């Protein structure tokens, strides 16, 4: 029975520098929701960001300069910042985290990944931590500017490793 949010796939990585969720996008859905619900940074110190790339129809992570994004970085402790770029190699600002126990979560919506005649669009909102473990959230839009079939999603750390669980749902 079709309802509104349908679990597709989960992947968990332990002490990894990246995590791929393969073959999670198909013709069954046009819109997907991706949740990073369990994140545990393993760096000794300092802030880190999780970055995002897509996976093409032969299973390769796309690292070409095909990503545009605009991110509003909202900090509880300082003025907000805008990060925007074209022709990047990834969506840079998915979630930021500082020390252990201060990692939050991400909700990312993906549009038209399976449609080989369309770009793949995304928006996401995250809550994490910045300097001194204070609140830092991102509100972002992004597009992968290549009309091709996208079959999966790939997350990687800006440095060091993390424990990460990613869940993918189809939106009916």
């Amino acid at each position, binding site marked *: *029975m*079709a*309802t*509104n*949010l*349908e*679990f597709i796939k*989960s992947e968990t990585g332990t002490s990894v520098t990246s995590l791929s969720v393969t073959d999670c996008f198909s013709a069954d859905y046009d819109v997907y929701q991706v*949740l990073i*619900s*369990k994140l545990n940074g393993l760096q000794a110190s300092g802030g880190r960001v999780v970055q995002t790339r897509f996976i093409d129809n032969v299973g390769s992570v796309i690292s070409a300069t095909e990503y545009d994004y605009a991110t*509003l970085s*909202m*900090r*509880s*402790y300082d*003025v*907000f910042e805008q990060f925007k770029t074209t022709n990047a190699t990834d969506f840079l600002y998915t979630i930021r985290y500082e020390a252990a*126990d*201060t*990692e*939050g*979560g991400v*909700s990312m919506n993906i549009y038209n990944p399976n449609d080989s005649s369309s770009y793949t669009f995304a928006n996401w*909102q*995250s*809550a*994490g*931590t910045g300097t001194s*473990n*204070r*609140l*830092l*959230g991102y*509100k972002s839009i992004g597009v992968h500017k290549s009309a091709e079939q996208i079959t999966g999603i790939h997350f990687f750390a800006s440095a060091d490793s993390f424990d990460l669980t990613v*869940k993918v*749902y189809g939106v*009916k």
Partner: protein
Amino acid sequence: MADDLKYGYKGAEPTQSFGNNTGVFDPNDINNLIADNKWTQYGQLELIETKSITSSTASMIFSDIQESTYNVHFLTYNNFQPVTSADRLGLRFFENGVEETASVYQYANQSNKASGAVAEVRTTADNHIRLGINVGTTTGNSDSGYIYCYNLGDSSKYSFTTIHTTGIYYSSSDFTMEFGSGVLPQASTINQIKLFIPTGNNIANLQASLYGIRYS
């Protein structure tokens, strides 16, 4: 079905899991697999509770949020109207049944009015997480939105929120949207969620539903 013919198989029986149910199932099998969270049934936005306020009430508390089942919660609210003009909605958490009332919450929101005004709304020390904008009592004016909550049941993690709200600002009647995030920066188990008006005034009208996102 007799145990020696479990799921229609004699001897070794197939492993059952979400998306991979194999065999012949009688109603008891299905009930047992549902109870074990191994039966494939779509619909992973699972309603925990819907609550409604339609007359002057101090707060709305979700007291059974099933924090050990869901790592991500999704809360929608709509048609918030205060008893007193210019009030807005806030959120607090209960840590193991104890309401956190201290000014330890942080939030960082951006408010965007249809008139063009944009404002950063941020603090590192408030006694609640701000949800939306200040609403008047004029008929038809209200505030609505949705909230994601992360890590509520994880005693080793901070508890985070992201919000997106929309409503009518009380003084100018400008349509206003606000989005942002919040945190209770304390590693603790959250087992209740409270919606209230931080000024201490009452809520006149509010409908809200709390969902758990299964497998999150």
